[in-house]
């Protein structure tokens, strides 16, 4: 338990530092990388809480896909650093307010509602051979199946909406039709003509 606590505080401190770096860094690419680092530390904290499925999915989805696209966009931006710094002071009160609100909510959920006291004993460890992937799946597809499916439909709707909003047909755009190309036979394209040899002039 001692080792557990030390690891928790070390990684939590690193995560806190990295998260501050995301906000304070002047270079947007550095910000994105620090955010990736924050996600990794969050995943480690979840591993310490024996939630290995959530930890790996966090890395897979956020680090492996979402942040790659973020980086892709940020790399192409030519950000005005002065303007970004002015934004920081302007939005600071809103950000601090939001952070406080979330902190209060978390305390409400973890401390007040579950009745776990903060004496450092924490949650009881899961029994040997317990797979939280299986546990999560069995709840997600039985008890919460409607909420889960509705969330999936909303995501699908968002994907389709985003694609429709950005899709535009440019006039005169030439596209390849692979099906047609594959279906082409030699006799459609080449005509073999028989003709007699001509005499040299």
């Amino acid at each position: 338990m001692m080792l557990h606590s030390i690891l928790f505080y070390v990684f939590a401190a690193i995560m806190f530092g990295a998260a501050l770096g995301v906000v304070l860094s002047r270079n947007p690419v550095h910000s994105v990388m620090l955010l990736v680092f924050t996600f990794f530390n969050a995943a480690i904290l979840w591993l310490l809480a024996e939630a290995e499925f959530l930890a790996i999915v966090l890395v897979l989805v956020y680090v492996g896909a979402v942040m790659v696209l973020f980086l892709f966009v940020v790399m192409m931006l030519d950000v005005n650093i002065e303007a970004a710094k002015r934004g920081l002071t302007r939005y600071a009160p809103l950000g601090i307010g939001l952070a406080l609100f979330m902190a209060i909510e978390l305390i409400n959920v973890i401390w007040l509602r579950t009745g776990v006291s903060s004496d450092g004993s924490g949650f009881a460890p899961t029994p040997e051979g317990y797979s939280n992937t299986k546990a999560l799946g069995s709840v997600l597809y039985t008890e919460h199946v409607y909420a889960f499916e509705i969330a999936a439909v909303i995501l699908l709707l968002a994907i389709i909406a985003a694609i429709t909003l950005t899709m535009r047909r440019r006039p005169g755009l030439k596209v390849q039709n692979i099906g047609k190309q594959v279906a082409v036979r030699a006799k459609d394209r080449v005509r073999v003509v028989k003709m007699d040899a001509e005499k040299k002039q």
Partner: protein
Amino acid sequence: MPELIAGLVPQFALNFWGTVPPLAQYLVTTVFKILILTIGVILCVAFSTYFERKVIGSMQARIGPNRVGPRGLLQPFADVIKLLIKEVIVPSQSSKFIFVIAPLLSLTPALAAWAVIPMNDWFVIADINAGLLYVLALTSVGVYGVILAGWATNSKYALLGAMRSAAQIVAYEIAMGFALVGVLMAGGSLNIGDIVNAQSGGVSHWFILPLFPLFVVYWIAGVAETNRAPFDVAEGESEIVAGFHVEYSGVAFALFFLAEYANMILISTLTAVFFLGGWASPFEGWTFLNNISWLAWLTAGGLPWLFVKMCFFMYTFFWLRATFPRYRYDQIMRLGWKVFIPVTIVWIGVEGAMAWFQVGPWAGMGG
């Protein structure tokens, strides 16, 4: 493993080992396993470069390397020494810190993913429940090295290579993930050891038969993920010089090289593990072979079988490189999004039907 150690280590050493606290025992054995595996992977990388040059040489009617050592076998070491003693040049307009850590970011996931891959029925560094997800997560993290290298270099060619690579890897990762959904449906577990065990019982039980379309998708997506020919637009020597690593020299370049080959070996091993039964022997269940003393070893599973299967896929990598011209960028995107993803989704539906009617790997499963 215990009987193996008992035969090799003297008694007093075993007695001393018993007095070591369990946490220290665990740390020492894990570090030792990691060392063995890492050295093995690096040696495989070294000799696969030699193998590649010989294979492509013979396909192009050349001899290939034959100067250093007998039949050129020491060529990889000559290459490594050359790369190690070259100067690392950091471009003056580059983002220095990111320029330096980018090769490390691409090498670390390539080596870390090996932690959950079982080499035989007992050698695995971390036998975790979500092993398949862990592999998928780490192979997707490897793209940061490429993107950051391209950005930090501050060169147009490198940036172009990085952009191409990012789009390509994100596109093929989805197909790869869906192919693995099929594997875990058939294996009934996310643990890679369990997936291999589900395929025991000879060739007819390997997942390549019921999951053949997924095998093809996984393998091609794997070639695309490692940025190898014919999907090597991120490097594209003839278009953008060397893509993301155009400004890297010496050891920094060697690290990218190491990461690329380690990833190739990883993808080869994973394909063998997921579809060809991993360390299982193809002759498993041929009991009459056990009666013939000089053929009995054929039915035993283990690392040699995995190695043979891995070598076959490595050969296929080189074969593809010597055979196909580079894909055009828009065709890569088309293949990933419009061909592979529908194929995998359809086959997951087919698998659902197979599970419902209890055929293939689901035969005899209740419910």
